[in-house]
Each structure stands twice: as structure tokens, then as C-alpha cells.
């Protein structure tokens, strides 16, 4: 099976259309960034506290807001995540000690408002150690005699089952009946002694503003260093203008992707940075494949105009570009669809990035090299013309 064979598309001839498209993409992203006052950084980069909470059933957003505002002064964001009955409760921009106490208060408010019946600990938030401690006396009373070690093992098994098989939330104590060591006496004891809260804490992130700023600065610096390193190597292996072309193409990809993040109102977090780095690697890989072909073709056909060499090279590698991008796109699409919450932002960046990365290698990097060549050529011509004229 072959998709492309001896294609002769005039990519270079249509460069203005695609440069225009890129400028439009960049402009749209920039405008969105400008209107929204810069990228929407996650708390990794701006500092803040976020508690991810999953509820049994639909989260009572208004109740949560009300309960939080009673105990915490200042702004508290309660944001619902689509799908899994999850909310993010968060605050931003406070100093480290304040963040720490807000984080504690959020958890306390959740416990007191949604944490099951008063006076009975919440089986959905209890830790294995505390569960073992609470069970000691009641179990014996209900005729279940276990040694300390056995009791701890039982508590650990119950908590493990709750977290791994029920995403941390039991709706009924009887759901535990399949767990090793849980018999009727244990169920009875759990029902008597514990209540079932309606929430489970999935994730907590607290980043002080100082740490956030450091991370942001470092992420940007490190990416620039890496790009610099690439530029030098490509300049060394090809010509300096190739290095410039590759780096501009990569920058283009990063800026367009960040623009997409702004348009779709997605947060830029540390994992997204990892995805952007992946995109950089991917785009440079693509660009070098085409450059390599250009270099090879230049050796064979010295007399041909450079624009034709670019077209030949892009056409020769077209099949490879489409297949590789298609395959990686499929893999990232799978990640986006099945990867879960944690991988979502990450996969989004990759899905965007692969398309843009392949596009820019053909329509940005190569024209820049051609333009640079043309500049050098015409400068040499005027220089030699000047020499002739002075004679």
C-alpha cells in the first residue's frame, strides 16, 4: 500500500498562503492571550492551592461555595469538571502560610459539611491506621476477634479496596463484602461505627508564590537553552540559516500551541510544559528530516533553483511525514481519549502540537532557509557588482 507516489505539489510556490495562515494563527492566539491577560497558568506557575474532590453523584456546587465562604475570607473558586462528578476548590495568590491554612480549612469544611453523620467518622476519608485504631474495641464487641496485626491488615485491605476499586468512594458498606477478611461481623461493626461521607479527596496542590515564580522562570530559561543548543548543532551540521529556520519553526509551534491553550481556556501546568518539550522535539525531528533531504538533493542537483530543491525534498519526504505524523497522532489521540484527567492537558498539547509541528517543518522552516539563501545570494551579487563597478 502506498499513499503518495512521485507527488509534485508546489509547496514552496504557495508559501505566502501558508505564511499568511501562520500569521493568522499566531494573531488569533496573541489576541486571545492579550484579551485574557497572558496565558492561564496553573497554580504550578502562579502559586495557589487547589483541592480536587470527587463526589458521590453530582457535586452540590452552590452548597460547597456557601460552606467555603462561611469559613474562608477572600476568593474561593469552585469549578466543576465535566464528567466524573469532580470539582476543583481553589484559591490563588496568597503567601505560603496563608495557603497552608486555607488548604487545611478547605479540607475541614468538606469534612464538616459533606463528611457523613456527626460523631461517626467518615469511612470514605479515614486512613488505614485510623481505621484500625477505631475498629479495635467495636470489633471485639461484635464477636470478631483479631490480633493487632490482623486488624491492621484488614483495615489496609478495606482502604485499598475503597481506593482502587471504587475510586475512593463507597456508597454502601456492603460493597466491601468481597474483601478478604470482611465478614458479617465486620460489616455490622463498620455500619455501626462509621458513616459514609459523600466526597473523596483526589488531589491536593499547594504551591507558594515564590516556588511558582521560580518554576515559571526556570521552565522558560531551560527551553531557551535547549533551543540554543539545537540551533548550534544544526548550524554546525548544515548551515547556520538551517538552524535559524528550525528554531523559528519550533518557536512558531510553541506560540501557536500556547495560543490554542488560551483560546480553549486550558491551564498551562508543569505537565503541559513536558508536553511542549515533546512537541519541540517532535517538530525539530520533522524539520531535520526535510533539511537532510534538501542537503542530499543539493549535492546531486547543483544547478537547480533552490525553490525547486525544496519542493522536490518535501515531496520526497511527504509520504514519511504524513505516515509518521499520522501514527503519532493516533497514539496521542488514544492518550487524549483514554488517558484520564491527569493526562488530559498533556494529551491536548500533543494532539495540537503534532499537527502544527509537521505543518511548520514544511511551510515555515523551509521557506525561511530559502529566504536566507536568497538574501545571501543577492548580497553576494550586489557585493560583486559593487566590486565590478569600482573597477
Amino acid at each position, binding site marked *: 500500500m502506498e499513499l503518495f507516489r512521485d507527488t509534485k505539489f508546489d509547496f514552496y510556490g504557495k508559501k505566502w498562503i501558508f505564511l499568511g495562515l501562520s500569521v493568522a494563527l499566531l494573531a488569533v492566539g496573541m489576541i486571545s492571550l492579550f484579551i485574557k491577560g497572558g496565558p492561564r497558568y496553573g497554580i504550578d506557575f502562579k502559586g495557589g492551592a487547589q483541592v480536587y474532590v470527587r463526589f458521590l453523584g453530582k457535586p452540590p456546587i452552590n452548597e460547597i461555595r456557601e460552606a467555603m465562604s462561611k469559613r474562608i475570607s477572600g476568593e474561593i473558586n469552585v469549578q466543576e469538571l465535566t464528567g466524573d462528578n469532580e470539582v476543583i476548590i481553589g484559591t490563588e495568590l496568597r503567601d505560603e502560610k496563608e495557603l497552608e491554612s486555607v488548604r487545611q480549612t478547605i479540607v475541614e469544611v468538606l469534612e464538616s459539611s459533606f463528611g457523613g453523620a456527626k460523631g461517626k467518622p467518615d469511612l470514605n476519608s479515614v486512613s488505614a491506621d485510623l481505621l484500625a485504631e477505631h475498629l479495635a474495641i467495636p470489633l471485639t464487641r461484635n464477636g470478631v476477634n483479631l490480633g493487632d496485626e490482623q486488624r491492621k491488615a484488614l483495615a489496609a485491605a478495606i482502604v485499598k479496596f475503597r481506593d482502587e476499586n471504587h475510586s475512593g468512594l463507597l456508597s454502601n458498606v456492603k460493597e466491601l463484602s468481597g474483601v478478604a477478611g470482611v465478614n458479617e461481623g465486620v460489616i455490622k461493626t463498620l455500619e455501626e461505627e462509621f458513616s459514609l461521607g459523600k466526597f473523596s479527596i483526589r488531589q491536593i496542590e499547594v504551591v507558594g508564590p515564590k516556588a511558582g515564580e521560580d518554576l515559571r522562570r526556570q521552565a522558560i530559561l531551560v527551553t531557551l537553552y535547549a533551543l540554543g543548543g539545537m540551533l548550534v548543532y544544526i548550524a554546525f551540521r548544515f548551515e547556520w540559516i538551517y538552524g535559524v529556520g528550525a528554531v523559528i519553526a519550533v518557536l512558531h509551534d510553541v506560540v501557536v500551541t500556547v495560543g490554542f491553550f488560551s483560546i480553549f481556556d486550558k491551564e498551562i501546568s508543569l505537565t503541559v510544559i513536558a508536553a511542549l518539550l515533546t512537541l519541540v522535539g517532535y517538530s525539530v525531528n520533522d524539520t531535520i528530516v526535510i533539511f537532510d533531504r534538501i542537503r542530499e538533493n543539493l549535492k546531486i542537483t547543483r544547478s537547480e533553483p533552490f525553490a525547486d530543491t525544496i519542493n522536490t525534498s518535501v515531496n520526497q519526504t511527504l509520504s514519511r511525514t504524513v505516515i509518521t505524523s499520522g501514527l503519532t497522532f493516533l497514539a496521542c489521540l488514544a492518550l487524549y481519549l483514554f488517558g484520564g484527567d491527569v493526562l488530559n492537558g*498533556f494529551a491536548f498539547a500533543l494532539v495540537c502540537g503534532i499537527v502544527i509541528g509537521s505543518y511548520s517543518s514544511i511551510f515555515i522552516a523551509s521557506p525561511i532557509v530559502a529566504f536566507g539563501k536568497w538574501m545571501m545570494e543577492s548580497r553576494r551579487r550586489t557585493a560583486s557588482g559593487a566590486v565590478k563597478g569600482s573597477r
Partner: protein
Amino acid sequence: MKRSLQNRAIIIAAVTLLAIYGIIGLPKSPAELFANMQHNIRLGLDLKGGSHLVLQVQVQDAVKSEADQAIQRLREDLAKQNIKYASIDRNDPTTIAGADDVVITVKGIELNDAGNFRDVVGRNFPTWDMKSVSSSDYALQLKRTELIALKADTVERSLRTIEQRVNGLGLSEPIIQQHGRADAEYEILVQLPGVDDPARVKKIIGTAAVLEITDVKDGPFPTRQQALAQHGGLLPLGTKLVQERPSSGSGRENAAPFYLVSRVPVVTGRDLRNARSSRDEFGRWETSFTLTQDSAARFGRFTEANINNRLAVILDNQIVNVATIQSRIDDSGRITGLSGEQEASDLSLVLRAGSLPAGIVYLEERTVGPSLGADSIRSGIVAALAGLAMVVLAMVVYYKRAGVSATVVLLLNAVILMAILAYFGAVLTLPGIAGVILTIGMAVDSNVLIFERIREEIREGKSISAAIDIGFKKAFITILDTHVTTVISCAFLFMFGTGPVKGFAISLVIGLVANLFTAVYVSRWMFDLRLFRNRDLATLSI
């Protein structure tokens, strides 16, 4: 040809076996296989759940307490030498940067005592620099080198104390290490995989755990004002007012009474030999402790002389217990009034580990709950399998037999990558997976490059063996260039990046090196093998 094929087969088999061994060990049962895999491929906190904490040691606390000790000694020395002064005080900076500005100010030294005073300071306080501020006032500041050493030592001691406390919790594979630049940031990184109660651990790490047992002079008083009024508005020399700890859950913070206690404790946390949780005769949890030999003797003498007086147990400047001395107490005591087993065992844990030399502030906390961790792993595996299945299917459809060999090579690459990560003991985090994805992308790309090149050569009418040879040679140049460029950028990421970025760089570099071996060396061997078996291959399934 045959010989070279055999040699290459041996190398490839050896690498493959070594890689598989690195991942699964030598399992005797399927259950053991899974256990070994879980043990060898270590997942990061973001994937399997746990807490990542960055805390900052408030080094200024240590400098201030060093200054307090110096003030104490200076007062004694000046009294001995009969040098009069108006006041000795220090400032109270509250930030880390302020640690360098801690100054002791001595005011009101008379002119004819000046020489004498300089002598005392010069002789007894060699670690301090003295400047005269005016004819009667002086300022003392800790010497630069001393300051640096003190701050470094404070971080070091905090680290050791936290280490002891965390180890006492019996968590599996905690990581506790210095973080950031050691000379300027005073940060400690604590990683606790699989912890299910992060709030408790944070409390255990963060409590100062300064224990004092001291005699009660007067009290209780319902408020601070009343206590002061009782003593004519001024506290007696050598005493301080301490509030009782509000009993847990009652929320009556204002109602907790005050006691007037002696400033110098009889016993401190440093005098403890051991502490453990136990139950009293009514089954209530308490923390009992034993004293070292020296302090036991001192405590025995003190209690004997003070029968019927009261003693207070003070923890972090809050009174936990007040008890009347019934008889001479030698080497043990207990702290009662605790909420339960966990508090009793946590308290004995922090007492055993000793107090922190300075306060700490949490700069960062990232906790992934165990339920999210389990879900992430599950959806990650589903996504990886789905992605792999799609890629493999597409390759086999498009490249037929060559696609099958590309699949084998791809899987081998993934196995080698995992094995090297396992051999290095590296941890696979989310950014690390980003590196693995890019690796797989580039590995697919290497195969595609080679195959497309071979197809081109065949189209130009070259023989199968020549097409394979030239295809590999030409594609190799491109593959090398793309790989070296990426490795160079990874080197920068590794040198200048923080944790997550580093994880990305490491797994990517390992993956690329493995890919050079699999996509070029192994893949070539597979093509050569097919050629060798069928010397006059007319068409290549590619």
C-alpha cells in the same frame, strides 16, 4: 554473511534477555512476575499516589536562638566583671533574608568600663564581630563564616530530624533531601509515596516538638490580664506565662487557663532517652518517656525537694499537663490527656526524633490521593495499549511484513527503555511518560524513514539487497541527525531543569539510545536474515 548474522543474533538475544531480566527478574509464578514488575518499574508520585512536599527551614530562628544564648552568657559575664549596662537586646527579623541581619545591641556601657567590656567580648565571644554605635552603645553581629556554617548546620539538623520522624512512620521508600541551592534556599524535599493521610504526616514533620518540664509558680488564671494583675502588672524574674493547650475539638480556645511557670525547665526534650505510646490503667492513651542517667539524677533531686509542688509539661509553648509531685520521680514520666492512639504514638515519635532547630514553612505540596493514583495507572495503561494497538495495526496494514518487523523492533525498544530505567533505579513520572511517547514517535519515524527510503530505491530499479543497503545507509544519516539534536537539547534540559523536566530528558535520552540499537541494528539484521534465507528475493513485502 552467515557468520555475521549469527554474531549479531547473539548480541541481540543477549541484550533482549538482559532487558527482560531487568524488568521481570526470574519469576517462578505469574504473581511473582507482576510483583517483580511493580518493584522494578518504579512509578512516580504523580502516577501512583503520595505526597511531594518542599519545605523551607526558617534559618533565622536558629540565628536568633544563637543570639539569645549569647545574650544570656553576656549578661552573666558582665555581671561577673561588674560592668554595668542599660540593656542588651536583639532585633527580631522574620524572613530568611533577615537571618543575616540579626544584631545584638548593648546599650549604656559607661565610658570607663569600655575597655573592660571590649576585653570580655573579645575573649568570650570570638564568633561575634563588635562595632561601636556610639560612645556607650555597641552592636554585635555573628561573623560571616560562622553565620554560613550555622545556617548550613541548621538545615542539616532539620533534615536529620525530619528523616528520623518520617522513618518512624514506617512508610515505604520515603525521599528526604536538600532541595534547591544549598547556600541560599534552605529547602528540603520530602517525597512520601503511597501516604494516605498527608495532613498527619505534615503535622508530624512540622511540629517543633520542643518539650519542657518545669515547675509551676502560680495559676491557673483565666486570662493573661488577671495573671499580670495578680503580680502587680509585672512577671516575677525568671518566669513566663504559658497557656494550656485547648482540649481537642472543643473550640474553646479562650477558655484555656494560663499558668505562671519557671523560665528555666528542669527537663527538656534533649534529656529524653526514649518515648513510647502506652495505655494507663483506664485504657486511655498516653505517651510515656524515660530520661537519660544524668537528667534522671537531676530530676530525682528536684522532685524530692519539691514534693507537693506542681510540675507542668510544656510542648511547643503550650501546657499539656499540670500535675502535683507526689513523691520523688527518677527516670520516667508520662504525658496524658491525649486524644487517642494516633496522637500518643505521633507524640512519642516526634519526641524520640528530637526537636527541630528552626521552624519550617511549606512552600509546595502536591498530594495525589491513592484513589486517583489507581485510576491514573489504569487509564494510563488503557491509553498506552490503545495507542500501541492503533500504531501497530496501521504499520502492518501499510508496510505488511516490514510493518511486522517494525512492530517487533518497537516493542523491543520499549522493553529496553523500561529495563534501563529499572537498572538505574529511575522513577517513571508523567513527564517521563512524555519522554517515552516522544521516543516511540521517533522510533516509529526511524522505521518509516528506512522503509520509505528502501521503497524509493526499489522504485528506481535497484535490486532488493542494494535497495536495503542504500536505504539503511541514507536513512541512518537522517536518523543520526535527529537523534543527536534531541540528545543535545535533553542535555540542556537535564543540566538546567528541575525534577519533572529532568525526568523527561532522562527517559527520552535512554529511549533514543535504545532506538539507535533497535531501529538500525536489529531492524537491519531482520532484513538481512530474510535476504539470507531467500537469496534471490524478487519482491520485498514492504
